[in-house]
């Protein structure tokens, strides 16, 4: 076990845990954002640089600070490590710089993008982006292509997180797409279009942090915040069959895998569940889905009472302040 302090909060995690995962165990505001790291895809991470943090103290044995900011998703904790994230201006400056870099070639076509409302880049830009751009040059653009009949690749929106290539490698076992060219001409593509035919290829849509890979069967059907997400499952011979149905008036508009609060899928689903079963009758409905990602989708949280929300909020605040405000927490608990 290793003791690690992140923004003044101490925790203990098993050796070999990354700083990001240690922060996720603490939870709350101090968790660095991640655009390319995906815990269920091996080898992902380290590329987008939004999770940069400052290591103030390397370890108990070697207390020197690390000279550069490090990617928290790929740096392992050491016993006695002291990390600062949102309490360090250098980190926040670097993060807004990276967000600016990610946005200069991003089309910002959110008003017509299917991902809007559940887009990691959108959330990140709200939090760390500037209100005006300093970029006056032409943006890079690509033609939209269909990779497979159900997946639309809109390369212009891509931030090259490489997650979908890891899906190709690790879920389908026969990756036929990858990154071509280099530098800012780099693009996700297939040599021969329309040839991703694996049963698990649809998971690329779920892992994509932006609107670069979208579901052709859902494109332009509805904004996500007008839909009601429902947890549902079915007996599927290929996958876990645990999904989220995105419904509107008893009509299933989209089927996706279940994402946790960091936007990560742990039980991937097959293409049959995703694309072929768009009837309420095909599914056993479990209940409303709570989307916990600073997203507009759960704005009218129909499943969490306001009191619960308040409690959770205060509890997190208290933890963050190191237990200074316990009285208030007890007060709130009493109301219940």
């Amino acid at each position, binding site marked *: 076990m290793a003791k690690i302090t992140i923004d003044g909060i101490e925790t203990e995690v098993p050796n070999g845990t990354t700083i990001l995962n240690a922060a996720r165990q603490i939870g709350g505001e101090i968790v660095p954002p991640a655009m390319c790291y995906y815990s269920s895809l091996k080898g992902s991470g380290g590329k987008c640089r939004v999770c940069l943090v400052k290591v103030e103290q390397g370890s108990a044995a070697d207390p020197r600070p690390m000279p550069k*900011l490090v990617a928290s998703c790929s740096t392992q904790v050491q016993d006695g490590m002291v990390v600062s994230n949102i309490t360090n201006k250098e980190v926040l400056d670097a993060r807004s710089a990276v967000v600016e*870099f990610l946005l200069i*070639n991003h089309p910002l076509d959110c008003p017509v993008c299917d991902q809007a409302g559940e887009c990691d880049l959108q959330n990140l830009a709200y939090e760390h982006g500037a209100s005006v751009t*300093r970029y006056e040059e032409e943006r890079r653009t690509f033609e939209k292509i269909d990779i497979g009949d159900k997946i639309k690749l809109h390369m212009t929106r891509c931030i090259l997180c490489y997650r979908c290539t890891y899906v190709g490698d690790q879920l389908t076992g026969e990756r036929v797409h990858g990154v071509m060219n280099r530098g*800012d001409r780099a693009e996700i593509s297939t040599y021969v279009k329309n040839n991703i035919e694996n049963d698990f290829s649809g998971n690329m849509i779920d892992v994509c942090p932006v609107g670069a890979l979208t579901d052709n069967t859902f494109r332009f059907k509805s904004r996500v915040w007008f839909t009601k997400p429902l947890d549902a499952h079915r007996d599927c011979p290929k996958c876990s069959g645990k999904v989220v149905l995105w419904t509107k008036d008893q009509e299933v508009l989209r089927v996706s895998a279940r994402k946790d609060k960091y936007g990560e899928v742990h039980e991937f689903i097959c293409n049959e569940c995703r694309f072929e079963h768009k009837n309420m009758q095909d599914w056993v409905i479990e209940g409303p889905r709570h989307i916990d990602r600073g997203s507009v989708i759960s704005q009218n949280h129909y499943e969490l009472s306001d009191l619960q929300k308040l409690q959770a909020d205060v509890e997190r605040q208290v933890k963050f302040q190191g237990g200074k405000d316990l009285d208030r927490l007890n007060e709130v608990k009493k109301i219940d």
Partner: protein
Amino acid sequence: MGRKLLLDKLDIPGINTFQVYRQNGGYNSVEKALKTMTPDEVTEEVKKSGLRGRGGAGFPMGMKWSFIDKKSDKPRYLVVNADESEPGTFKDRTLLDKLPHLLIEGMISASYALGANTAYIYMRGEFRWIFPKLEAAIDEAYAAGFLGKNILGTDYSLDIYVQPGGGAYICGEETALIESLEGKRGNPRIKPPFPAVSGLWGCPTVVNNVESIATVPAILNMTGDEYAKIGIGRSTGTKLISACGHINKPGVYEIEMGLPVEEFIYSDEYCGGIRNNRKLKAVVAGGSSVPILPADLILKTANGEPRLMTYESLSDGGFVSGTMLGSGGFIVMDETTCIVRNLWNFTRFYHHESCGQCSPCREGTAWMEKVLHKIESGHGKMSDIDLLVNVAKNIEGNTICPLGDAAAWPVASAIRHFREEFEYHVLNSDKVKNPKHFELEPFSPTLKPVEPQPLETVN
């Protein structure tokens, strides 16, 4: 006349053949190492020599060797980085082209010290014509019993393979090189783990520059202590400098560390002064990625001491008034050089060569190139100059590999030292379109040449 340890035999006719090389004392160090020394003693000797990696970063080589994971039961590898593609650097080319046996000799001793039975030379794709020469030299060494099984009757065996690269600058970064050698896309890996623990095929690997390895025979022949006596302080030995630009005698020179920069530029033994009796304007001392310095700062440090060709002296003053020895690509510019155009050209290179894996470098290099193109072609704004400084600062230190830094440093330093020139380009846009400039096609396909149009607001 400085001592020469690497290029001393360069002028002997036929030195690229095994016979001539052997007659002139070649491969003696291999005999000495394999027959009289243990691997640890070889490493110790290199440690004593104080030799610092000649590829650019200047990391002590003996130290790097001692990091290799000897407890692991996996095979160990030596990889020679011959992917020399930094603009201004062409020292390894001379060694590979003219003295292939020197490299092979160094590789045998180095592999012996590391306990590696397989060594690779990853060679830049553009060095295509050297490839058969190097292969022929390796064949000769096999025939003479210096490579293959049981070298010189000892129980040590070594195989050397040459792998040509595809011509990507990024593959000179050691982990990208390893990826490329494994047959993958040449993207730098995230460190740690370092190659000494998990490198080629996940095995302990040491990646060294050609020149570093080619220095090993000299160290073993003269002992590490003797080698350490050459040079000043922690900069020991001799270094190859590839001098180019506006000088009378461009070429590859071997210098003793500690030579004054002024002597290197003006003495007839080395560069022979600035061509056409012009004045010195600026020098990029270690390949395009190190900060550029104006004439007064390259000849003397900010404290007024003469600047010497050592790692310490060149970096005296940090990034405010210093630079780096880097890989030894010494680019000299005379007073007719346009720094803005030069910087645009460098940045264009980094834009072209960025691998596109991490965001700051992928987007930032392209951004800087586009802004510089605008300024150079007379469409810049005053605010663009500060924008460039800020973008460079945002890239620096935030990337996976040093390519981001390498792209940011020239921009930051050129604007720090030559800001007036950038301002001149903005204010006098009609004059800067010099017809004498040969037209470089802007690299990026999205970057169309800017059409002349009335300037809006430059007052």
